[in-house]
């Protein structure tokens, strides 16, 4: 149910504030996203810089870094996800309460980056958990993280409360737990969660 933008402005001039429940609800949700205090590698240093005075993530309502996944809304995968760490990352994601969001920060988190051909680095965390925003860069500058955060806010703003594309906590059918990969004799098993990640088609 959308309110006519012109009518809204007109009524605002008269001192009447008009909104929809969805707008109000999403405004509240997007304006206080608490990230999880969780860093994996050098990107974490940029993430820390983003929270400090110069870039000040607090302007967007995301300054409260929680040390527990139970109290966090957003996970910033900041750095290289090794195959030894990947099960723990998925486990932490499983422990977060809905609605939860993931930003994959940096070349390593989105694809394995410079270590992609290594035996011990996961080729992107999106193989096991759903990622909302990917940021390229090695490491991305704090501005890039802010941009990603704003993209996430736009995404939350656009989520309807009912029907297709509603947030996962309002969808009883949505999967709550994602399988944690096993550390096998040669590699992680399975190599990817098929319900989350399928091999993208490359058009050349």
């Amino acid at each position: 149910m959308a309110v006519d933008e012109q009518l809204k402005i007109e009524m605002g001039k008269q001192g009447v504030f008009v909104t929809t429940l969805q707008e109000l609800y999403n405004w509240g949700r997007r304006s206080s996203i608490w990230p999880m205090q969780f860093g994996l590698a050098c990107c974490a240093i940029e993430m820390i810089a983003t929270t400090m005075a110069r870039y000040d993530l607090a302007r967007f309502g995301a300054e409260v870094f929680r040390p527990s996944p139970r109290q966090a809304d957003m996970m910033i995968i900041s750095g290289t996800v090794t195959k030894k760490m990947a099960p723990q990352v998925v486990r932490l994601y499983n422990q977060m309460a809905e609605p939860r969001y993931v930003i994959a920060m940096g070349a390593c988190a989105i694809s394995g980056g410079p270590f992609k051909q290594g035996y011990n680095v996961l080729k992107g965390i999106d193989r096991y958990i759903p990622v909302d925003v990917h940021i390229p860069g090695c490491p991305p500058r704090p501005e890039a993280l802010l941009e990603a955060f704003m993209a996430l806010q736009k995404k939350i703003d656009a989520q309807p409360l009912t029907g297709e594309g509603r947030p996962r906590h309002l969808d009883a059918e949505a999967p709550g737990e994602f399988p944690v990969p096993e550390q096998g004799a040669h590699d992680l098993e399975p190599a990817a969660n098929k319900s989350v990640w399928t091999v993208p088609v490359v058009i050349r």
Partner: protein
Amino acid sequence: MKTVEEIKASIEAAVPGAGVEIVQNPGPAAQHSLLLTAEKAVEVAQFLRDDAELALDFLSNVTGVDWLDKEITEKVKVTRTVAKTVDGVEQQVEETVEEPRKRVEPGRLEVVYHLYSMSKKHGPVILRMRTGNRTDRVELPSMTPIWRAAEFQEREIFDLFGVVFDGHPDLRRILMWDEFKDHPMRRDYVEPDDYDYEPTPHDEVLAKAKAHQEKLAGTAQAAEGDAAR
């Protein structure tokens, strides 16, 4: 500081039957190293650390080297009798010919220790140890009781090369998980075939991605064949 030859002499004076050999470094650095035998290595290390003149109290680095089986072709002079026509007369003549011969030098794992002295401000002294082969005789004595700094690095060598250190207080994998079976830094390590998504392949990666696609196509064809039957 003493030269490698002098160190070798003093080791042999202090530890009878040490069996130390010098491995030459032909490069301009000329950092020759001492090859220790597994039996006497701990005794020699103890001497190197406690000797008043050497006082090698700081272990800076431990690393591993994997030497594969090496096929060596060399020319050997062979003397044999051949029938030959000399001056129109057939005679038996002795002749020396060079014949190529192949021999296989068995592979081994090697561990290298770099030692310095903090008190005497000298170094490095380089120690090497070699295993019997690459498969079942991979035990070497641990230097952790002598230099505590060796603990994590020996664990790393155990993890990545598969050298088993006797006398190590806590020999577990350090980088890979406990269930992992391979030794990734060995030269015959086969990496997992996860080349299903390579958006920008080139060189080696391109070859591997292609091989992966062909393998996939092969299994798909085999499955179709089964279905047709």
